[in-house]
């Protein structure tokens, strides 16, 4: 497990040393929190939805994690470009451990970002309803982080073009976010939208997180956890597969 730990530590150190990295991926989630939270809030409340920040915050936290996790895949492209990838690929270490270390590193950073967004949400008026459910919320954050870091790993392993990566990621972030139930309740949606949200893995993350933090899950925490867990597991395997096929 030494290699997994040291590669994890590397990612964390690089994150902590770069202020640009910390701030860069906070922009979008915070923008959405303020624009939607304060813009839509009054309408949502008038329609009888309850406190909108209370509804929205879990989705925004999930978004913060999603964004950082997906973009962590670009580190593979950087490492390929600037050579460090070779150092890891000629080491007598199974690629599975390398990709595991990298993914856990990326997921940890996504968790840091999620924690920062969480804090900002608290400042904006969000309240956790049952503190004893925080460990469950933490578990959902971890699953979201791992699943989407693995997606980032897949794209980071397959793409060789530095310009293509952010374009594709941006293309994925918005639909994942909008069709996840992060900004509107899942009940009573048109059929097409229900279909889109129910195949979106982030939906289960948002729902689980919301359930844990504010008592309002649509599916039940058990189902959320199972779906997201299976999904994260599959993505990890697929990510490892693509990473292990990298040639230099």
């Amino acid at each position, binding site marked *: 497990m030494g*290699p997994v730990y040291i590669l994890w530590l*590397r990612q964390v150190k690089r994150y902590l040393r*770069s202020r640009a990295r910390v701030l860069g991926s906070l922009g979008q989630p915070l923008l959405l929190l303020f624009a939607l939270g304060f813009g839509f809030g009054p309408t949502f409340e008038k329609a009888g939805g309850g406190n909108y920040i209370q509804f929205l915050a879990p989705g925004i936290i999930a978004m913060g994690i999603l964004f950082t996790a997906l973009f962590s895949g670009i580190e593979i492209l950087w490492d390929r470009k600037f*050579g460090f990838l*070779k150092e*890891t690929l*000629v080491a*007598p270490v199974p690629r599975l451990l390398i990709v595991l270390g990298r993914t856990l590193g990326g997921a940890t950073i996504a968790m840091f970002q999620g924690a920062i967004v969480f804090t900002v949400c608290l400042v904006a008026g969000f309240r956790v309803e049952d503190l004893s459910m925080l460990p469950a919320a933490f578990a959902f954050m971890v699953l979201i982080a791992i699943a989407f870091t693995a997606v980032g790993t897949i794209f980071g392993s397959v793409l060789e073009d530095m310009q293509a990566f952010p374009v594709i990621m941006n293309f994925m972030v918005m639909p994942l976010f909008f069709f996840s139930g992060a900004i509107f309740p899942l009940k009573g949606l048109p059929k097409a939208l229900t279909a889109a949200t129910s195949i979106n893995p982030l939906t289960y993350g948002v729902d689980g997180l919301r359930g844990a933090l504010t008592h309002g899950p649509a599916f039940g925490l058990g189902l959320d956890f199972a779906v997201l867990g299976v999904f994260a597991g599959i993505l990890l395997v697929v990510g490892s597969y693509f990473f292990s096929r990298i040639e230099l």
Partner: protein
Amino acid sequence: MTAAKPDMITVRDLTKTFGDFRAVDQISFSVPAGKIFGFLGPNGAGKTTTIKMLTTILKPSGGTILVDGHDPVASPHEVRRSIGIVFQDPSLDDELTAFENMELHAVLYGLPREGRREKIDEFLRFVELLDRRDDIVEKFSGGMLRRLELARALLHEPQVLFLDEPTAGLDPQTRNHIWSYIQSLSKEHGTTVFFTTHYMEEADRVAEEIAIIDHGKIVARGAPEKLKEEAKAKTLEDAFITLTGHSIREEEASALDSMRNMRKMWKKRR
């Protein structure tokens, strides 16, 4: 003890094609254990491609390789344990310190925790970087980066050290430094060294055995003295011209150097 040393590297009919282009074309050679072996050739001759195949990161299109008794295709793990590499292009993490880069390597290669720190310091001292131990690598000069990469490649005490153009782009003083480390290593530890270069005079000075590669084919093999004698040339440089009919210097200050510069500029803007 038998008289003839066993071969550390054996290559038979090794070939690599990219599409219908033959970058390496049926080359054969062997490197005796403990020797310093120079692989010479102009840019684009196929040196890096050969090193990549010897070091498990590229699959050959044909032929066989044995490194320290293992086949890089069938048992990459065993080969990886036996070898240390300094790649042609940088491969450090420049957001980590010199020590952290070394430590990462030590852990990847499974060096025991106790004594790790001391060992890292010992190798940093060997390449005269101990005083820069805790500095972020980004600020290092080209020569320092090269020395750090060398120290890192030696940290796990490999049987064979592969060096792909270890001195390219460095000033003469740093080049001398690097060669003196390598020679002392070979003398004191009996490490086998396989290096590539397009600086003929360095190969002449340092290598005990040489193979000259041009357009993917080996055109001459043997000790530097023998090659010069055969070609009736004063220097290896002249021997190269006699053997290949062209100069090795054609594309010096090559595309590669300009790419390096571009990278530097690009990184500054990041």
